């Protein structure tokens, strides 16, 4: 690979070798190792790898593909409608997972798999069987499987669900491996077949176990599933090499392949910074290790097994671990803060909420199973009827119009919009009046959306709920008829009151959206005492507490010349900042509808 024109490109051959090794180890024990998450765009490199795996898997091992949007019935098994209609009695259909018992299922585009499909796979991986309770069928079928999850995620946002990855032994990334590096592997299918037979006889001694568990701890790999998987992979590695007992190399390979990709911290906290900057040495594979030991034979011999293993694993830790950790933290944050948004987009279509009588068409979907269920009891009667009428009575199932059932979808959960209005100072009256207008506009519109509105004002010593959550326009008009304004700005009290009210709303299963109208300049602290410094500090503290509750919020600054105070506040609250100088009720309600 030392082509002079390409010296600057990193050498990935060791990584490719590791990927091939993982394929072989997976082929030795697909069920025991749970699965492989393979991150790579579709292309020749991935094809070569998958081809290798299929070659290594013995012919008798079942291999099934799961399409991305697989129907639950097909995955788990359920009622075989065609056969049921033909036979005139319920006929169960075996699901893909049951068909793959003892073998491998390949999951395409695993980064986009639905949460429920991921949960079914996890359950099958945990229990080694599928339990079906659907369509009038109760069944348990064995489904001991290994999963090959093809992850085509292009960025950090797209990833295989964590529930699945946690149950997999291997996490591979073929991302930067070039085609000419993907050389054919010299692992022989016969070797794998032998290893499969030999696997049960391999023993693991205490020192190997200690080295694996110690390495997992040192790398901050919390889940014990990873340790169990590493243990099994070490055994598979020993079997692959024809050993009766797990040796140091096997433990190293397991740590490198299973534990290193899951590291959440570096083993030695003193030197992470420099380490991070450098390109890590290429991870050694089995052959390289030998050379390594030759270079420093003395030292290597003296080191306890755990340290050797740790070193080997360290070398395989992704070079940008720190950056990835930060990304991970951010991702979690963004995921949770976007929670209500996610629910919303999912519920545009709504959750299925049972079925009702009705005719398909115009967006309504026929629920075949329920339709049949309704039709079923009448079949005998209808057949008799037909016979009496002299019609052909050999129809197996006669479905009439009355039997049609369509799937009902549930509307999204109720949203409560909470206006928190800064009623202090000279601009108070303007802000209050426009907020009131917006409340009325929203309520008029809410009649259709079945949403609620509340209003809190803060001024002088504290905050006051002017309008408790309501759907009634009349009540809102009455409560907001006279609005008091002027005085100091107890921003902290206002935010606290909003958070408490929003908490109540979420506890009742609703979604709360908080609209804070302020210029962000506090001058009354939490205890109701004046003073800019303490007041601002309290406001920020309240804003941070607000952020923890992860509510959807919007800070609207209506002052003619917006200053940065409100924007800082919005950031602290995890809210969207919107400067709207000279805004009126209409603009305000428009903005609110855009966020909620």
């Amino acid at each position, binding site marked *: 690979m030392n082509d002079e024109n390409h010296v600057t490109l990193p050498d990935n051959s060791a990584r490719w070798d590791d990927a091939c090794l993982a394929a072989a180890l997976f082929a030795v024990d697909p069920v*025991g190792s749970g699965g492989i998450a393979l991150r790579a765009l579709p292309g020749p490199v991935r094809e070569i790898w998958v081809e290798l795996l299929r070659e290594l898997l013995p012919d008798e091992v079942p291999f099934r593909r799961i399409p991305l949007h697989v129907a*639950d019935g097909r995955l*788990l098994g359920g009622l075989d409608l065609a056969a*049921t209609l033909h036979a005139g*009695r*319920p006929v169960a259909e075996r699901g893909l997972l049951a068909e793959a018992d003892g073998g491998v299922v390949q999951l395409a585009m695993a980064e986009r798999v639905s*949460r*429920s499909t991921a*949960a*079914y796979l996890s*359950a099958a991986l*945990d*229990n080694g*069987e599928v339990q079906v*309770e*659907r*369509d*009038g069928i*109760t069944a*348990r079928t064995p489904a001991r499987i290994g999963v090959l999850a093809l992850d085509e995620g292009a960025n950090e946002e797209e990833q295989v669900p*964590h529930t699945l990855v*946690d149950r997999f032994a291997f996490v591979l990334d073929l991302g930067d491996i070039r085609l000419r590096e993907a050389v054919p592997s010299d692992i022989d299918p016969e070797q794998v077949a032998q290893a499969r037979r030999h696997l049960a006889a391999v023993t*693991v001694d205490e020192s190997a*176990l*200690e080295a694996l*568990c110690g390495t997992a*701890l040192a790398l901050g790999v*919390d*889940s*014990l*599933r990873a*340790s*169990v998987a590493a*243990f*099994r992979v070490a055994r598979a590695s020993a079997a692959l090499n024809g050993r009766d007992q797990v040796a140091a190399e096997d433990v190293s390979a397991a740590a490198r392949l299973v534990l290193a990709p899951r590291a959440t911290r570096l083993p030695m906290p003193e030197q992470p910074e420099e380490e991070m900057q450098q390109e890590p040495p290429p991870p050694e594979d089995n052959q390289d290790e030998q050379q390594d030991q030759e270079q420093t034979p003395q030292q290597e011999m003296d080191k306890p097994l755990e340290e050797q293993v740790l070193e080997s694993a360290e070398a395989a830790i992704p070079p940008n671990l720190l950056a990835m950790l930060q990304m991970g933290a951010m991702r*979690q944050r963004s995921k949770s803060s976007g*929670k209500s948004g996610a629910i919303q987009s999912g519920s545009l279509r709504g*959750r299925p*909420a049972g079925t009702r009588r009705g005719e398909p068409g115009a967006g309504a979907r026929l629920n075949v199973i329920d339709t049949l*269920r*309704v039709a*079923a*009891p*009448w*079949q*005998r*009667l209808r057949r008799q009827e037909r016979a009496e009428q002299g019609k052909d009575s050999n129809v197996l*199932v006669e479905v009439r119009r009355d039997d049609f059932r369509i799937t009902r979808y*549930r509307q999204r959960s109720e949203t409560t919009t909470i206006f928190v209005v800064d009623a202090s100072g000279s601009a108070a009256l303007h802000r209050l009046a426009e907020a009131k207008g917006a409340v009325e506009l929203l309520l008029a519109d809410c009649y259709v959306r079945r949403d609620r509105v509340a209003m809190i004002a803060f001024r002088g010593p504290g905050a006051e709920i002017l309008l408790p959550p309501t759907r009634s326009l009349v009540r809102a008009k009455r409560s907001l008829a006279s609005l008091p304004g002027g005085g100091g700005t107890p921003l902290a009290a206002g935010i606290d009151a909003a*958070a*408490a009210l929003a*908490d109540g709303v979420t*506890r*009742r*299963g609703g979604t709360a959206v908080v609209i804070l109208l302020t210029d962000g300049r506090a001058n009354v602290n939490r205890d109701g005492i004046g003073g800019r410094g303490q007041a601002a500090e309290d406001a920020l*503290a*309240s804003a941070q*507490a*607000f952020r923890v*509750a992860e509510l959807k919020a919007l800070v609207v600054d209506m002052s003619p010349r917006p200053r940065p105070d409100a924007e800082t506040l919005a950031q602290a609250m995890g809210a969207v900042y919107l400067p709207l100088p000279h805004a009126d009720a209409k603009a305000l309600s428009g903005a609110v509808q855009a966020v909620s």
Partner: protein
Amino acid sequence: MPLAFPFSAIVAQDEMKLAILIAATDQSIGGVLAFGDRGTGKSTAIRALAALLPAMRVVDRCQYNCDPEAPDSGLCEQCRERKATGKLKARKAQVPVVDLPLGATEDRVIGALDLEKALTRGEKAFEPGLLARAHRGFLYIDEVNLLEDHLVDALLDVAASGENVVEREGLSVRHPAKFVLVGSGNPEEGELRPQLLDRFGLSVEISTPQDLKSRMKVVRLRDEFERDPPAFVEKYKRKDGKVRRQILNAKDRLPDVEVPDAALERASELCMKLGTDGLRGELTLIRAARAFAALEGDDSVTDEHLKRVAPPALRHRLRRNVLDDAGSTTRVERAIEELFGE
């Protein structure tokens, strides 16, 4: 059902194990919720419960596991008819631990028309669902926070009334369905609705052990189990038997365990201090302390018992405090410390 990992082979996780023992001793406490990270053995511990439960007496040939000693109101229709015409025949049966798998459809949970009978014989018959099977036992929901909303509604309704009413497809059936909810989930996947949260008597937070020795033991035992489940279960049979006897003894002892006024007062104070919602917290705290005392072989409830069970009994009932970022466990512990000294 595949063989479950034996309860007595579970390493560490003391709070979890205690909560399960308490729930098995006094079913009226209302179940256990186990929340924790991935790979901590939540479902392992819960699935192990089934093997620990002593047998119970049920009416022979009753599809709802009716209790032969129950008053008429606690019997299903058929058993009431049978009782009217003669004596109920009893037989021994395992206390059911029923899995509610994710993706179960509403008809299988609640019960629906028996398709087979309808299609082959043109007969209208009710086929009981999972709720019927779980009567007098436990209903386990893994990934409870991913459960579909309409199923949660159905569950809450039945759990509150102890009776399942089915009105669908021209069927009109009601049958008793009293069960203990047991759930597990990963908080990262989503939160639980407060109403459902409140149904669980005890909640435990699980994390992986951080010491090398325990972790090694877990890996070793887990692997041993999965390689040969029957042999492994056999190996722990005696230890599991001991746990089962402990539960049986505690059940016997339970009615005689005294709850002194001082303990009642303590419990109220603790709940007030934490500002828990409703009376359920206080009630659960007392009941759990009593069950714990019974398990320990003690005659009356003391501060020690209260202290041990307060975190699982109360941590999921705290109002979210806007100004306190501390986790609920810390808040309960802080309150205990302030109240009980130490």
